[in-house]
């Protein structure tokens, strides 16, 4: 055996650093992410992320689908807060068409979107706990995420990939059981969130692991087009809900929490604070909805909104619209529209070009995860490998949104 089987690159034996592969299916990466890291002992010198493992060509698929069939595609972007994606897409179409949406529907949407934000932040923050060695808070909060999923289930029938609502409103009115579940959530959640904060926020080990890990300053964060909680943790108070209010967010009172250092700890605090603010918005939404006509749950837009099934069997008009919508024969006006919503991870934008046909000419999703994950090498270089794992959790990269 004189032949050398392993071909070493030049200088490989002399080199004192180590190349390691973190991911794509590593238990500490919470999703399909691969990072090829160059480490010197415990220090990360550089890292090269490889993405695209679960790319599903949504933008291409969307070019053949009628508009109402694109909603399930948006579910699978950020699947931790699918209702925000769904409603963002409906709002985009409604903006293109110029549809008038009743106030009650707008408030119902706000209610659902804020519940989704809470669910998303709960996952992110509790996973930071898991990565720093605290599994218990994670098990506590998942019970409450479950309660939010039960609310979705009561409204639309599904839990994770919700496909909630329709263009023009909701598929059905909120049931009495849904309201009971929402009320129970609003009443019980503050105690849980309080307990969660007590377990982690001033925990010495947690603080030592998080403070100073994976930092990014405001200037770099803006240059990297950060949005959402990650940008706000760096100290920039940009929030789409305030900057360009949609779905009547201007009727609600809430604060935009911001951090200073932009490290893991600040991102954790910002998300926690946002959950309190979201809970406040949910309460306000419930109060506002009670004052409005309880029978309204969709806009009067027969061309886009599916008629009641009973009407389809008995009324000619309803039958025609039903057929046209299901067959995707309703044409949209030609135009070009960009609409963005504040997703749980940042500005989720929909850039839609319509040529007047049954499906988009071009649809592009501005996916916040995809845009800020490119800053990851800069955030973790020079830090410890264990900090890099926590930093990855704290920016809350969702593989579905990253890869589209």
């Amino acid at each position, binding site marked *: 055996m004189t032949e050398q089987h392993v071909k070493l690159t030049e200088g490989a034996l002399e080199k004192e650093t180590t190349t390691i592969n973190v991911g794509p299916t590593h238990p500490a990466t919470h999703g399909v992410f691969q990072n090829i890291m160059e480490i010197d002992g415990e220090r990360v010198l550089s890292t090269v992320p490889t993405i695209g493992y679960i*790319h599903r060509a949504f*933008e291409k698929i969307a070019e053949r689908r009628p508009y109402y069939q694109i909603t399930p595609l948006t579910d699978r972007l950020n699947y931790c807060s699918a209702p925000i994606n769904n409603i963002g897409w409906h709002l985009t179409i409604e903006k293109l068409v110029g549809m008038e949406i009743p106030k009650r529907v707008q408030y119902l949407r706000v209610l659902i979107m804020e519940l989704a934000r809470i669910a998303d932040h709960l996952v992110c923050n509790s996973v930071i706990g898991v990565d720093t060695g605290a599994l218990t808070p994670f098990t506590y909060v998942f019970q409450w995420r479950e309660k939010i999923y039960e609310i979705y289930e009561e409204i639309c029938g599904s839990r994770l990939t919700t496909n909630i609502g329709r263009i023009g409103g909701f598929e059905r009115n909120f049931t009495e059981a849904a309201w009971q579940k929402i009320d129970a959530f609003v009443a019980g959640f503050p105690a849980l969130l309080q307990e969660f904060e007590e377990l982690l926020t001033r925990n010495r080990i947690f603080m030592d692991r998080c403070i100073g890990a994976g930092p990014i300053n405001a200037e*770099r964060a*803006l240059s990297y*087009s950060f949005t959402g909680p990650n940008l706000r943790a760096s100290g920039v108070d940009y929030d789409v809900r305030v900057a360009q209010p949609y779905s009547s967010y201007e009727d609600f009172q809430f604060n935009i929490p911001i951090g200073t250092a932009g490290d893991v700890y600040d991102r954790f605090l910002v998300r926690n604070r946002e959950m309190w603010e979201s809970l406040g918005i949910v309460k306000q939404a419930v109060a506002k909805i009670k004052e409005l006509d309880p029978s309204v749950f969709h806009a009067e837009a027969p061309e886009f909104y599916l008629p009641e099934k009973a009407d389809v069997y008995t009324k000619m008009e309803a039958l025609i619209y039903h057929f046209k919508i299901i067959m995707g024969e309703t044409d949209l006006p030609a135009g070009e529209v*960009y609409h963005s919503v504040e997703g749980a991870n940042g500005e989720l934008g929909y850039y839609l070009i319509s040529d007047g*046909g049954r499906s988009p000419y071009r649809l592009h999703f*501005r996916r916040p995860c995809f845009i800020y994950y490119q800053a990851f090498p800069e955030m973790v270089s020079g830090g410890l490998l264990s900090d890099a794992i926590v930093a990855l959790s704290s920016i809350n990269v969702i593989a579905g949104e990253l*890869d589209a």
Partner: protein
Amino acid sequence: MSNEQIKEQLSARFPDLGEWEEQYGLLTFRAAADQNIKILQFLFEELQFQFLTDITGVHFPDRKDEELCVVYHLHNLPANVRLRMKVYLPVERPETFTATQVFAGANWMERETFDFFGIRFIGHPNLTRILNVEDMDYFPMRKEYPMEDPTRIDKDDEMFGRG
């Protein structure tokens, strides 16, 4: 800062800009392929458009010599104004300049645009495929690549799909 003011300042500095539009209140204009970075820099320094919302591509196979389009969405955060810039490129030579010198975040957005449309950004530090596999030899978001197998005859596109 209103759209009118932005338009005035931009056209005073760059008289070649054209196709001004304001669909849904969003100021849109067209720029030449060799001027895109100069305009982005001017917008960044003079008009405070310091936040890059998005870069993406569009394919218009019917537009002769301007088949591909790069779309930039910019945001002036203090004044809370957005604008959209379009750069059209011929499909034979789809080249324009990279915005990575102005915005760090342009890096992956341009890689994605290259990956799906084959638009080359001159000066980009690492213009390789990002979501698709390295050895792919076509640009899947171009319109000539149908989503489904074109040899299938069991699907009638007249009724289902874009006819």
